[in-house]
């Protein structure tokens, strides 16, 4: 429709980007350099490099890594099997539907499911196992987060697997490659872009998860997202909250670059 888009017709998009992409980032950087009294300072940045915030950044990273890893571990084979089924788009739909349910609602449901008198413990008891405290552990936190992110990881992987030309797989098999070699040398490299975008949509939000850390992990896990929420709502220290947000943005840019760059090299 707009094959010869002149500069004029792109004008609304420039406005949009200036107002909703650039302006917020500039504002965050600006606020990050204000102290509680509104004076310019770099104290927030030095505070970020104190042991508390560095430790928090590392734990956020570690948990985001674990969440992404397990999500990928489950999502890739699922997406792979989905492409082999007869009504693959129907099955994909069925997997995606739970992501339409509000996140908080699902999280609250897990409080009941993981409870001491919940169904999981009732199930364990059938096998004569003792009641386990599942809620407020690392396990419950990672489990619930993985559950939430799985659909977002499956979609891009499914799409790239779906686009894979099956004749390439046949060719590999004809040339004597085992099914593992075929997967390692043909299928996986050709779907790596799907995996990368899956990792992006999982890892980045996982870094800043915040309600689940309280409801499911009982604040035993503190992510950068939780810290931002606390700084804005409780401490009313917008400067420090913005500083953490600046670092979060920097980390995200790095991840985008890392997962975007290798694209050309291998394939």
């Amino acid at each position, binding site marked *: 429709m707009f094959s010869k888009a002149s500069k004029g017709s792109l004008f609304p998009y420039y406005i949009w980007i200036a107002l909703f992409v650039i302006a917020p980032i500039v504002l965050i950087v600006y606020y990050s350099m204000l102290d509680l009294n509104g004076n310019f300072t770099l104290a927030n940045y030095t505070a970020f490099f104190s042991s508390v915030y560095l430790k928090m950044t590392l734990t956020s990273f570690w948990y985001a890594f674990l969440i992404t890893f397990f999500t990928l571990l489950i999502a890739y084979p699922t997406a792979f099997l989905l492409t082999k089924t007869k009504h693959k788009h129907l099955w994909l739909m069925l997997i995606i539907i739970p992501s339409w349910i509000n996140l908080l609602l699902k999280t609250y449901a897990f409080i009941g499911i993981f409870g001491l008198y919940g169904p999981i413990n009732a199930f364990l008891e059938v096998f004569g196992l003792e009641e386990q405290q599942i809620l407020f552990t690392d396990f419950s936190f990672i489990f619930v987060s993985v559950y939430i992110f799985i659909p977002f990881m499956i979609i891009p992987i499914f799409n790239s697997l779906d686009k894979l030309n099956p004749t390439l797989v046949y060719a590999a098999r004809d040339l004597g490659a085992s099914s593992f070699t075929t997967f390692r040398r043909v299928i996986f490299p050709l779907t790596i872009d799907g995996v990368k975008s899956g990792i992006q949509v999982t890892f980045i939000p996982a870094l800043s998860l915040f309600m689940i850390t*309280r409801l499911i992990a009982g604040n035993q896990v503190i992510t950068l997202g939780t810290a931002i929420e606390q700084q804005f709502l409780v401490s009313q220290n917008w400067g420090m909250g913005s500083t953490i947000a600046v670092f979060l943005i920097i980390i995200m840019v790095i991840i985008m670059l890392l997962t975007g760059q290798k694209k050309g090299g291998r394939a």
Partner: protein
Amino acid sequence: MKSLVQATVAIIVVCALLFFVADRLESAGSAGSKDTITVYNWGEYIDPELIDQFTEETGIKVIYETFDSNEAMMTKVEQGGSAYDIAVPSEYMVEMMKEKNLLLPIDHSKLPNLQNIDPYFLDLAFDPGNEFTIPYFWGTVGIVYNPSLVADHLDFTSWEDLWDPSLKDKVFLVDGAREVIGMGLNSLGESLNAKDDALLRQATDKLITLSPNIKAIIGDEITPLMINDEATVALTWSGQAADMMWENEELDFAVPEEGSNLWFDSFVIPKTAANIDGAHAFINFMLDAEVSAQNNDYVGYSTPNAAAMELMDPEVIEDERFYPDEELRDNLEVYENLGLQWIGKYNEYFLEFKMSIR
């Protein structure tokens, strides 16, 4: 391209339809009475029947909204997007809102029922002469526990009991910096309004030694966990404890003797108010002895309304766990507004403590 246009049109049509329905619903709702007030209160902090009763008696319709922290409430009032006629801040937040000129003075001549309030709760330090506030509820911070699930020698008359090795992985704390750091300070025998870095450091270090006993730091979710025996010991507010004990009779509540927090929540009329007469009418209604008694029964916190207490079950008001006498109250401290600088520090220490619990 065609399907894209179709999808866009479909979305716009659905949105327009929803907008229209919402608009109609809104005008239908307020058509009956042009007189409305907007009440901004904590969750689960009023008997909903009383709101209907108020509308029946006065013809003033009530729009009721809730918040879950003083700070969130103030932020919304400060930004002035909604016309709140009544809000219910705690005492330290009243001071902060006064400083920022967010409150309107209250006309006592429009509140004949003010005489029902126990004079002990009037003219308090955070609002001399009750120029801006009318007391709503008060309470303490203490420990709710299940005596059948903890060792016999623990009765929580001292904060030290929380450090007992038998409570490994059993203690739940409320997710609030002032409550938790305040508890640390109290356990050292210090004031929970301390403005002294060395003391805060000491209190945080003491709290960090509590880490092995801590299961989780959460908010209102603690109520169902205590009721279902999934949690055994929790630091919480007295009224929340009363709610739990109402559902689970085994539970008990104690306010440790080293001292704790005494807090007051009050009605205020924020400067966003659009219907100031309606706000006064609502406050006066809530101060009525019978209304207040019914509300206390529902909410479970301690009331400052002396006339209402006469109508309540004597067993409730004689319960010293929730209605400590004046002598016990002297052991308790009201939170002072420490200023943003110190609130920030309390939160930094609290964050450090939270980082240590695993």
